[in-house]
């Protein structure tokens, strides 16, 4: 009797800890639904999960294979992010998307050893754009240096191409992420003759009085922001407090969500941020999401973040990964792809207007192509502006290109240095 009970218990345990069915396409999502950055992490996690639920429900997965999302909570903590990676890499994981620059930096050497690609969409290490050196890292469709240059190009457009003598401040999260654009902005300052002030804000950024008094004293013409979490909303409040003209305050795409502007109420009106993609829910994809996910009660969240900037970004992120899976399946003629095949899919990704229309997202983002040399896409973005009365973001520019003349040498320099330090031979 005891032996029978023991056998049943063992069988139960084995069934609980058994790995997922090998046919599943496994994608881990290093989420942060808890902790100080959870208001940003929750809509992103929901968008990512909802898109793949749609593909599973509507299309039976991708190429006949169901997609399995493994969500692992990091709390935006780098150490926990690495633990999540170690815990999930053996599950047949095809690609990682850590949504954190800090975690990305820690995982870069690890994914190279484990030969699992990592996609850091619009964040992470900028010079990973150089695919010849960073074989396993992809940061398309744009990176921080593109962002810095696009913001400056927008300011140039507003000033008839001449910003010499203008005072531009960078308010940044005092971390690896926040420091990313500094070098580019310094190079661009040399080229365009503007005066750059660097104003760091320590985590979490609840108190920024000193920084904004400095901006007021310095009579800055423009302020750029590389913030995340509560730092963004406090900065926008403080900017409003000192009556800084909001149309001259431009955030990177991680400083341009509803969470960032809503606490300041109508005083956030006209605040700008860069946009990697479209806003709102006016795309056919959302009809399908409603039919196959929300109405069936399969949504990851409560529906309150649907169509928000960060939800849309995660939907876009998952659509790109799904397209890369399709590409890999076509290239290798198998549906059950491996991480190495996934790398090939990412490296041969071609996102055209036709492709985006097939996703149900026509005109949502710029078309681009990825190659062995270029893992970062074309680096195009738009500018979005907050309408406080209508409580919505509006895209106010066309696609703006970054200054490749300045950025490309920086990428070459940084990635070559990384290759030298790590004995990497450029492969293409």
């Amino acid at each position, binding site marked *: 009797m005891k032996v029978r009970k023991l056998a049943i218990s063992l069988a139960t345990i084995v069934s609980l800890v058994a790995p997922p069915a090998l046919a599943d396409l496994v994608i881990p999502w290093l989420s942060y639904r808890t902790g100080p950055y959870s208001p940003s992490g929750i809509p992103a996690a929901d968008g990512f999960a909802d898109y793949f639920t749609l593909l599973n429900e509507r299309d039976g997965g991708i190429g006949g294979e169901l997609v399995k999302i493994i969500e692992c909570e990091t709390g935006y903590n780098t150490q926990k992010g690495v633990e999540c990676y170690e815990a999930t890499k053996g599950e047949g994981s095809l690609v990682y998307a850590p949504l954190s620059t800090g975690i990305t930096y820690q995982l870069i050497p690890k994914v190279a050893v484990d030969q699992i690609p990592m996609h850091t969409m619009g964040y992470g290490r900028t010079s990973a754009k150089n695919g010849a050196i960073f074989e396993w890292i992809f940061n398309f469709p744009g990176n921080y240096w593109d962002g810095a240059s696009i913001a400056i190009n927008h300011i140039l457009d507003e000033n008839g191409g001449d910003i010499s003598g203008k005072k531009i401040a960078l308010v940044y999260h005092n971390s690896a992420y926040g420091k990313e654009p500094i070098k580019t902005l310094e190079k661009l300052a040399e080229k365009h003759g503007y005066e750059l002030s660097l104003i760091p804000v320590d985590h979490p950024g609840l108190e920024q009085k000193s920084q904004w008094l400095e901006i007021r004293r310095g009579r800055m013409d423009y302020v750029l922001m590389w913030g995340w979490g509560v730092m963004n*909303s406090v900065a926008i409040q403080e900017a409003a407090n000192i*009556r800084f003209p909001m149309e001259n305050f431009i955030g990177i795409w991680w400083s341009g969500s509803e969470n960032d502007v809503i606490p300041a109420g109508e005083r956030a009106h006209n605040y700008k941020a860069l946009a990697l993609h479209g806003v709102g829910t006016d795309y056919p994809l959302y009809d399908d999401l409603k039919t196959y996910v929300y109405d069936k009660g399969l949504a990851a969240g409560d529906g309150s973040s649907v169509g928000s900037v960060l939800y849309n970004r995660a939907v876009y992120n998952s659509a790109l990964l799904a397209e890369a899976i399709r590409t890999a399946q076509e290239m290798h003629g198998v549906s059950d792809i491996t991480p190495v095949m996934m790398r090939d899919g990412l490296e041969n990704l071609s996102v055209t207007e036709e492709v985006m229309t097939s996703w149900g997202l026509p005109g949502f983002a710029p078309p681009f192509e990825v190659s062995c040399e270029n893992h970062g896409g074309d680096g195009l973005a738009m500018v979005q502006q907050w309408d406080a009365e209508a409580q919505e973001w509006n895209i106010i520019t066309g696609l703006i290109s970054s200054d490749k003349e300045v950025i490309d040498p920086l990428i070459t320099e940084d990635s070559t240095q990384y290759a030298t330090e790590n004995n990497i031979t450029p492969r293409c």
Partner: protein
Amino acid sequence: MQTLLFALEVSLNGFMTGILYALVALGFVLIFKASGVFNYAQGVMVLFAALTLVGLQQGIVPFEHLINNLLGTSIHGFGWNMPTFLALLLTLLTMLLLAWLVEKLILKHLVNQNPVILFMATIGLAYFLEGFGDLMWGADLKKLDIGVPMGISDTVEQATYDWFGYGFFIDRLDITASIVAALLVIGLTIFSQFSKTGRALRAVADDHQAALSVGISLRRIWVIVWSIAGLVALIAGIFWGSKSGVQFSLSLVALKALPVLMLGGLTSIPGAIVGGLLIGVGEKLFDFMVGPMIGGATENWFAYVVALVFLLFRPQGLFGEKIIERV
């Protein structure tokens, strides 16, 4: 001359920010003074109070996500926004209930335990309350607006411009917070000096054993003092929440209160105020004068360095009671 004016403006803003720090520190002091417990959960109480206030104000049904998931319903709020006064009142009642529950479920069972055990219990309480708040009101960012004026004070700007030729920036929210903090300290002082309960609080703070021997109920005092700390947390939550929106990060304001406590002493209400002001003014002036030379972002660590240096010379803080242990 202009640098002097800038320094004056920075000092004034530091002064106001210091009051906001002191508001958080006050909650720690009240509980430590009455029970010898360093309440690690004070920062989370600030968050919980603000979450409850804004949740009620916005007509959110507590635990609605949980209810919807368990019962398959689709409840999304009461359908109306609660008047601010009523929301404030209900939040206060919630904080009183929390104080009662803390005493009933935690402190009562830990009487006469080592202070470290009580401290550990408050760590547990902090993490529980954090998750409980999320579950009750949702983790999304909420805008808190109870009509506190915000933004630059035109009066101060104009007056200083007329006097010095340079208009100072002072946030109207900070001015309001200063007035409220002053009223709060006056109220607490009157309460502790002139009311019977207040005298009992002081007796407990002075000597637990002696207070017990004359018939003061330690458990009742704990409920009262945690309730007052809850009120202080609500006030701090209103001002900090109005600045940043109400979200998890609000609990991190406690990090700003720790150097204030180290400087002012854990057992003194005036110490919390003076400590807050010294830290506020000190960190802002340091960042203004030295920050540009060393890359800025000095405020977080500077406050702790000041507090640490202070600890070396006066471990009990400015106004704290000197610890004398006789062998």
